[in-house]
């Protein structure tokens, strides 16, 4: 756990970068510091490992005042991913990752094992271990930076725009991998970004800072989106707050409609009856174990119903996808229906615009 208590940082030139900051980062949480450029995010983060010394207040890590700890020792116990990555150009991928284990004196074989494990964990291809940083792609470099910070398995991590230097597609993938990893390792993480979407996606809690390092709001992404504390926060969240909120709700929160489903081998008359009873002129065709085969107009049905002739659904969503993804799928489908599956092809039901709208209304009412 990291606690900021009335922390202040005034640089020698008089700039107040952080002012009277109170913040508590719970164990195992990802706290995202977000705010416009120059609002003191990096300064706040760097005070935790004493790269920058606070000029007021106290910071404790797991109950110990950081000012009473040897800074070098403190830093070795805190993983740090620097804003510009900062890989050592003269050391290979493996040597970069091995940096802190070497500093704290692990033996060779243990280091070798750990490096191999980390290369795998962060999803780097095997061939890169002996390459120098300039021989890696931007995304690979970011991964090495993360692997290096994770090397000795520190309980606390500071990550300053760790995915800042890559294109949006790679960034999205790195974010997903990070979340998957964090679900396994449960580190206490302070994560800096100036991208509100990244903050919403990554954070258990978000701290929104304004110029001069003033904390404007500190809550879960859902609460911040539902109740921005003031005009600054509202402005910072930007347009499409409703859509951003949808991105936090998984598809599984909305009960799917079973829909007009028939199994392969049903005779055509029974199948048409299923469709009619639901007011539809088409049916979903599934195989054994609810394996999705596709759909068909009722007047084009073979007798008995045949799975091979079924047309594929264009829009499929999975339970863990966000409602924002589902809505996007619905908007781009002319039928207004998205099929929900699990594991790629097991039919779970249908998601319609009506269902989604009803859910949103309920949700909005519940939050009033």
């Amino acid at each position: 756990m990291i606690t900021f208590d009335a922390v202040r940082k005034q640089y020698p030139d008089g700039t107040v970068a952080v002012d009277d900051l109170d913040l508590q980062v719970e164990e195992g949480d990802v706290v995202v510091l977000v705010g416009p450029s120059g609002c003191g995010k990096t300064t706040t983060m760097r005070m935790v490992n004493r790269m920058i010394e606070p000029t007021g207040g106290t910071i404790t890590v797991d109950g110990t005042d950081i000012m009473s700890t040897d800074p070098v020792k403190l830093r070795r116990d805190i993983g740090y991913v620097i804003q510009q990555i900062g890989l050592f150009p003269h050391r290979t991928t493996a040597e970069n990752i091995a940096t802190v284990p070497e500093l704290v004196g692990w033996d060779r074989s243990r280091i070798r094992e750990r490096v191999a494990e980390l290369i795998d964990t962060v999803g780097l291809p095997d061939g890169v271990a002996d390459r120098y940083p300039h021989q890696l792609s931007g995304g690979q470099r970011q991964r090495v930076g993360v692997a290096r910070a994770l090397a000795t398995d520190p309980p606390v991590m500071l990550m300053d725009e760790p995915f800042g230097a890559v294109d949006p597609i790679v960034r999205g993938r790195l974010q997903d991998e990070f979340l998957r990893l964090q679900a396994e390792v449960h580190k206490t993480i302070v994560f800096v970004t100036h991208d509100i979407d990244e903050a919403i996606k990554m954070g258990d809690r978000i701290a929104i800072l304004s110029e001069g390092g003033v904390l404007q709001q500190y809550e879960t992404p859902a609460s911040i989106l539902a109740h921005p504390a003031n005009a600054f926060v509202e402005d910072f969240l930007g347009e499409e707050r409703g859509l951003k909120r949808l991105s936090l709700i998984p598809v599984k929160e909305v009960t799917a409609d079973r829909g007009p489903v028939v199994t392969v081998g049903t005779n055509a008359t029974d199948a048409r009856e299923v469709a009619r009873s639901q007011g539809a002129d088409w049916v979903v065709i599934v195989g054994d174990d609810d394996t999705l085969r596709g759909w068909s107009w009722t007047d084009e049905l073979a007798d008995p119903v045949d799975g091979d002739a079924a047309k594929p659904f264009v829009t499929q969503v999975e339970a863990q996808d966000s409602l924002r993804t589902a809505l996007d799928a619905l908007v781009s489908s002319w039928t207004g229906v998205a099929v929900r599956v699990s594991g790629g092809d097991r039919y779970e039901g249908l998601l319609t615009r009506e269902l989604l709208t009803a859910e949103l209304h309920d949700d909005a009412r519940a939050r009033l």
Partner: protein
Amino acid sequence: MSTLLAQSGRPFPDWAWFDERNVDRLRDLFVEHVQLTGLALLFGLLIAIPLAVAAVRWRRLYSPLLNLTGVLFTIPSAALIIAVFAFLPVQTFGLKPRTSVLALTIYTLLILFRNTVAGLDSVPRDVTEAATAMGFRPSRRLLRVEFPLALPVIIAGIRIAAVTTLGLVTVTAFIGQGGFGQLFITGFQRQYTMEVAVGVVASVLLAVLVDLLLVWAERALTPWSQSRGGAT
């Protein structure tokens, strides 16, 4: 050269010059040339590196030191060496190799200091910050991160210093050392073109050889920068 050629009664090139006595002499001069240069470089490095580290660490020293060496550097090298001879108490030091080494060291020092500072300055800030953030102590960071990364620029400085010093060594022939430079003096005195030519060729060959050696050393010491600009 033309007057020299005209006055000299000997043929040119005169391969007879390479008799046993002269070959022995050439070998001794080679040793002297290399020794004077090597010592000047060694002492230059021993002084320049701590000085450069101090200048980079304590920024207050930075500008004065850089300005001072900058001014000294604009003085033509040969003139500087002669000035050093003129101002040094040659009487107390004597016409000895140590006087020459001292003068040459002062010159290498200028080059080496400026390049070492430039090398240390060229280490990217994010890299040194990352090192600090991971828990390097300053001394270890200097040794394991900053020096290795400054090495290409430092070695570039050593190359310039080495080649310049190899040339300057000949000037010290005025006080009785000078390596191959002595061949110039004796060659002119005896109006023996071949002797002067051997001196010139030997100096040039030595300079080329030393430079190649240093290039090779740089490649060997900095494998990480070799393929720069290749992949990525």
